[in-house]
């Protein structure tokens, strides 16, 4: 039962969870390699949280299984737990305990030896900068600080696998950046991380991602590979009237899809379509444009394409 370095750390085999008749996740099968930063990406309700709960052993699967370090999480969830850390989406620490009390509580639960503890906590404080707040109640921390505390409690036993459910949700941009820096450091030290996010810019930081929609796998690959596989060329149209432009282009034969991106419009060209055809169509409708440029598809473009594709089929 001692997996060699080459074996995947997490292997999902038809992992399925139903709540009554509703299917939360269906037949998930993929593997996460050691020291990989693995992203689970999808909109709300895609099944990200359910997937992580199933992996963490706090929710039993309806069918299928996941092996973590070769151990079945369906059959022996308790044997898996000492080696992993799970950070729920909702802040799960005790708000009426101080920062230090929370950390020591989790250190006790994971049986971190006393003599190693001071050293580890010091290291955790070095990245979290929570040291000066040791005696502050966790409930009195800011959102970003809370997440760093949660991460500290998760890391105090040096898990080999980290399961994080939207760790940057509701966190300010600077703390978000800090958190991702920490995750990259952890991966560099050999920790495997499975992280869910609904921010696609974050997903692009992952080694590989799985795109989930309504409980099913839409795509599973490296972000760059997914972007490269994007069908057709992509244009970004800058215009003062993006909504009118979208409505005009939606059914145009040169256009496969037109999607609003903030103040811009992303236009995916149909086979045979060209930027000139798009410009002509907008000019014919008297919609002023401030530039039409070809761009590389982002993960968000890929995601929209895949979701729309699966909705049609």
């Amino acid at each position: 039962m001692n997996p060699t370095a080459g074996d995947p750390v997490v292997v999902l085999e038809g992992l399925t969870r139903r709540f009554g008749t509703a299917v939360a996740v269906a037949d998930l099968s993929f593997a996460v390699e050691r020291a990989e930063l693995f992203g689970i990406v999808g909109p709300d309700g895609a099944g990200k949280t359910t997937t992580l709960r199933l992996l963490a052993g706090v929710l039993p699967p309806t069918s299928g299984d996941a092996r973590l370090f070769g151990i079945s999480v369906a059959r022996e969830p308790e044997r898996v737990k000492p080696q992993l850390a799970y950070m729920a989406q909702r802040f799960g620490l005790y708000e009426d305990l101080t920062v230090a009390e929370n950390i020591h509580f989790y250190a006790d639960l994971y049986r971190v030896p006393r003599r190693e503890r001071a050293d580890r906590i010091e290291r955790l404080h070095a990245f979290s900068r929570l040291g000066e707040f040791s005696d502050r109640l966790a409930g009195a921390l800011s959102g970003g600080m809370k997440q760093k505390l949660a991460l500290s409690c998760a890391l105090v036993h040096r898990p080999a696998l980290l399961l994080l459910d939207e760790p940057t949700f509701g966190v300010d941009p600077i703390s978000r950046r800090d958190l991702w820096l920490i995750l990259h450091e952890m991966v560099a030290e050999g920790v495997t991380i499975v992280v869910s996010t609904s921010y696609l810019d974050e997903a692009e930081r992952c080694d590989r991602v799985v795109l989930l929609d309504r409980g099913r796998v839409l795509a599973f690959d490296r972000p760059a590979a997914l972007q490269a596989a994007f069908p057709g060329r992509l244009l970004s149209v800058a215009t003062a009237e993006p909504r009118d432009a979208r409505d005009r282009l939606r059914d145009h034969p040169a256009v496969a899809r037109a999607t609003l991106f903030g103040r811009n419009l992303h236009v995916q060209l149909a086979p045979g379509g060209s930027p000139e055809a798009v410009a002509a169509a907008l000019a014919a409708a008297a919609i002023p444009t401030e530039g039409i440029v070809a761009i590389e598809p982002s993960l968000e473009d890929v995601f929209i394409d895949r979701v729309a594709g699966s909705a049609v089929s």
Partner: protein
Amino acid sequence: MLDPIRLAAMARKEWIQLRRDARSMALAFVLPLLLLLFFGYAITWDVRDIRLAVHDADGGADARDLIQAFESSGYFRVVSRLDRSADADRELEAGRALAVMAIPPDFGERLRAGEPAPVQLLLDGSDANTATIALGYADAIASRFGQQVVLRGVRIDPPVEVASRVWYNPELRSRNMIVPGLVAVIMSIIAAMLTALTIAREWERGTMEQLAATPVHRLEVVLGKLVPYLGIGFVDVAVAVAAGVFIFDVPLRGNLLLLAAMTLLFLIGALGLGMFISAAMRSQVLATQVAMIATYLPALLLSGFLFDIASMPVVLKAATAIVPARYYITVTRGIFLKGVGVEALWAQGLAMIVFAAAGLGLAAATFRKRIAP
């Protein structure tokens, strides 16, 4: 399998949270004492100073003697004298009198003639318990008065005389019965209420999901949470016993060590029951309500605290077998008033061992480290 460090961590964490929550602390330490004082003073079965209105149509010396006999008994207090017997209704309706005694005009005459001399007693039966007791007192006073009249001047020895003596509570103070029983009733409720919150609160706040992902064993969670409440329960019982002895003047004749051992068993069961409810309901509001219903009424009505179990209907009598307060009440009353030891209370001890095992077992079997089944 159980790890002492994890167990201690759970207990410490729970205690810190309790300590910082004013509401929990009030529920743990203030409420039990308040209930004890409140019920201890409010509940009494001693019927004294029954308000009596008298309509004396006779007005003679014998009638006065009879009224005097009622007054000097200590059970009745004459609050008004009525001129017309028709006023009796008004006195009872207005609640000014609990009983009305009407002495007929020929009362003295009949007595002197050696004839039966009936006296009318009207009782407010809306409180049946008090009315029955008052009737008993009145009967006793009247018949003694009758004897004295018949035997006026002559002394004879009755062939059979019952010399009764009441043991354990010679003055028949109801408080001596109530206070030890109250300890059991109050602790049944408080113990279950305390732990009913603990697991449900963690599910509601989302801390249980995090805890469930750690290697902590579910028995470590249940037992670790139990420890601080066990300490609280012990302090509560100790304070209640001290209040019983020093405030209510109830004699404590038995062995304190035995009381402590029995209390331990009882508390484990009662706290376990609360935790079972908490684990099953997963909602603080629901768990509190269920714990209240599951403990309050049975402990009050089916424990022998208010009503004698022996005189209950068969079905209710059978139901009392699963009311833990019933056994603990026998223990507290036995140790307080009778000073009995293990030889008299071993059956109650066994019942409470079963109860403790059941409470803990149910809690451990119901609590799962799972968000959904």
